[in-house]
């Protein structure tokens, strides 16, 4: 075990503080509007803290470090694209401005106004399915980090995951978005401090010049055949790294994430107005570079460290190398701070995601099927029960599912189950008057084909993630255009 008494004290103080703040907010929850979107009282700086904390989870740290380990700094090119996408959307208000002005709680709710009740239900189903499958691996990856960084016995992983989820569940189910906002704020502070401290310590330990020289020599060695194949560590356009095809897909993908990813959009919907949401996007944009690049730096440093110390020890992979490296690097006190920071990252993401998907299931899958509306008390009870159900799903799915390929590829492809189609529905619904519910239905179904094929057949047949992902966007757009134009007279009649 790598943790000393001081580390434990830091971790326990952080956990107790978070739990107390989260549970304390439950007294302000009187209805689903308070529970799901915090009464729409969120302002720009709190929005920034919440968005940043939710979108930087322990799972993010793990997969971005894996990208850094395998692709060097070039692995963070996705963060740069994400930053540009946030600036574009925050600068123009593309999709998010009309979405916030519509006054809806979730994206599918807008589809009922624009298309039909059926489309809302179907979109809700896809959004929830894609979101839950995407979130399914968070706990396992988070648990892997904690076990490797702290030196806990590996069989403790399930207990660590369960305990962490129990804490998050308690305050999310009781206080909803209000608890999530306040705990996100605390978690943002702890996580931000931990990331800065860790990055400085990693640079000091490995040395900047040594890092650059070692990454470069690994690449040169791979080209001459004297060391295993490696990707270009600095140039993401090189064919050994992401290559052009993958990066072009990522440009479309990240614009879709910025406008469609329900956990990001839920901050837009909780914002005081559209202008607050746009400012929140612009100010958070550069944060997304560091979200990929700083853990990527730790991963690249882990690669150099193990290369210079006799190779990766048995049992470690490109995914678990970084936490193991941090466990050997960080001194007493700092390790406690970093573990608290990573717990913060995990908890803020889990709480935000559980709340978001529970809200979608309640608002868009269950509510449209009810003959008469539930009482406010029953609505709250049902949403809380859904949060509990999602927690149970996470626990069991996280234990048995084995990813086909890298964590990052799994996450992008599962997100694409609905990103491609819902993005198409949003853009067409808001900006194309000829879009109709026939086209919307075709876009939803066709958009899910590529990602589902990757998940079911990705082990048996080699399907490139960019092919599965970009086919999702192309098929959804095709479905919308052909479906809408082919049925325009039928839609006009109905």
């Amino acid at each position, binding site marked *: 075990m790598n943790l000393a008494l001081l580390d434990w004290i830091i971790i326990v103080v952080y956990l107790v503080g978070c739990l107390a703040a989260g549970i304390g907010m439950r*007294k*302000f929850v*009187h209805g689903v509007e*308070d529970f799901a979107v*915090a*009464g729409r*009282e*969120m*302002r720009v*700086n*709190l929005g*920034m*803290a919440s968005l*940043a904390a939710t979108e930087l989870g322990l799972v993010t740290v793990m997969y971005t470090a894996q990208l850094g380990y395998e692709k060097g*700094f*070039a692995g*963070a090119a996705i963060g*740069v694209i994400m930053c540009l996408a946030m600036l574009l959307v925050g600068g123009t208000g593309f999709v998010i401005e009309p979405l916030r002005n519509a006054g809806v709680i979730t994206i599918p709710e807008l589809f009922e106004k624009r298309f039909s009740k059926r489309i809302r239900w179907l979109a809700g189903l896809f959004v929830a399915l894609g979101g839950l499958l995407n979130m399914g691996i968070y706990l396992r990856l988070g648990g892997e980090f904690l076990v490797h960084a702290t030196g806990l016995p590996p069989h403790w992983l399930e207990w660590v995951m369960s305990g962490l989820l129990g804490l998050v569940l308690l305050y999310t189910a009781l206080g909803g978005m*209000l608890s999530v*906002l*306040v705990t996100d*704020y605390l978690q*943002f*502070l702890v996580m*931000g*401090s931990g*990331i*800065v401290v860790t*990055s*400085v310590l990693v640079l000091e330990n490995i040395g900047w010049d040594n890092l*650059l020289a070692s990454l470069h020599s690994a690449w040169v060695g791979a080209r001459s055949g004297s060391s295993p194949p490696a990707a270009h560590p*600095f*140039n993401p356009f090189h064919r050994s790294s992401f290559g052009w095809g993958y990066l072009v897909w990522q440009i479309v993908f990240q614009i879709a994430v910025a406008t469609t990813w329900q956990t990001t959009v839920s901050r837009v919907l909780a914002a005081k107005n559209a202008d607050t949401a746009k400012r929140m996007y612009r100010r958070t944009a*550069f*944060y997304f*570079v*560091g979200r990929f*690049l*700083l853990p990527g*730096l730790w991963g690249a440093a882990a690669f150099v460290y193990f290369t210079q110390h006799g190779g990766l020890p048995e049992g470690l992979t490109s995914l678990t190398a970084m936490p193991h490296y941090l466990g050997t690097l960080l001194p007493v006190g700092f390790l406690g701070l970093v573990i608290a920071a990573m717990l913060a990252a995990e908890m803020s993401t889990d709480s935000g995601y559980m709340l978001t998907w529970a809200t979608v299931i309640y608002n868009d899958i269950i509510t449209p099927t009810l003959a008469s509306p539930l009482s406010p008390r029953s609505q709250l009870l049902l949403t809380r029960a859904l949060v509990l159900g999602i927690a149970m799903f996470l626990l069991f799915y996280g234990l048995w599912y084995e990813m086909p390929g890298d964590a990052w590829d799994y996450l992008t492809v599962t997100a694409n189950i609905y990103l491609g189609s819902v993005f198409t529905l949003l853009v067409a619904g808001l900006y194309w008057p000829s879009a109709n519910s026939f086209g919307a239905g075709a876009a939803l179904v066709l958009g899910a084909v590529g990602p589902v094929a990757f998940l079911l057949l990705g082990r048996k047949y080699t399907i490139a993630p960019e092919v599965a992902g970009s086919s999702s966007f192309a098929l959804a757009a095709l479905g919308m255009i052909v479906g809408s134009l082919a049925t325009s007279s039928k839609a006009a009649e109905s």
Partner: protein
Amino acid sequence: MKDPFIVFWAVMIFGSIAWYGFLVFYVGFSAGREILELVRVLDKASR
């Protein structure tokens, strides 16, 4: 001359560390005030 990609990543890495450090203090202060304001509004509404 240095590889332009290395210069780019160096600027991004040190810029990100500085930006994260700044945000912790700036957002820590301003979002803290917004939480107090939020609690005041909700408290008034629940009475």
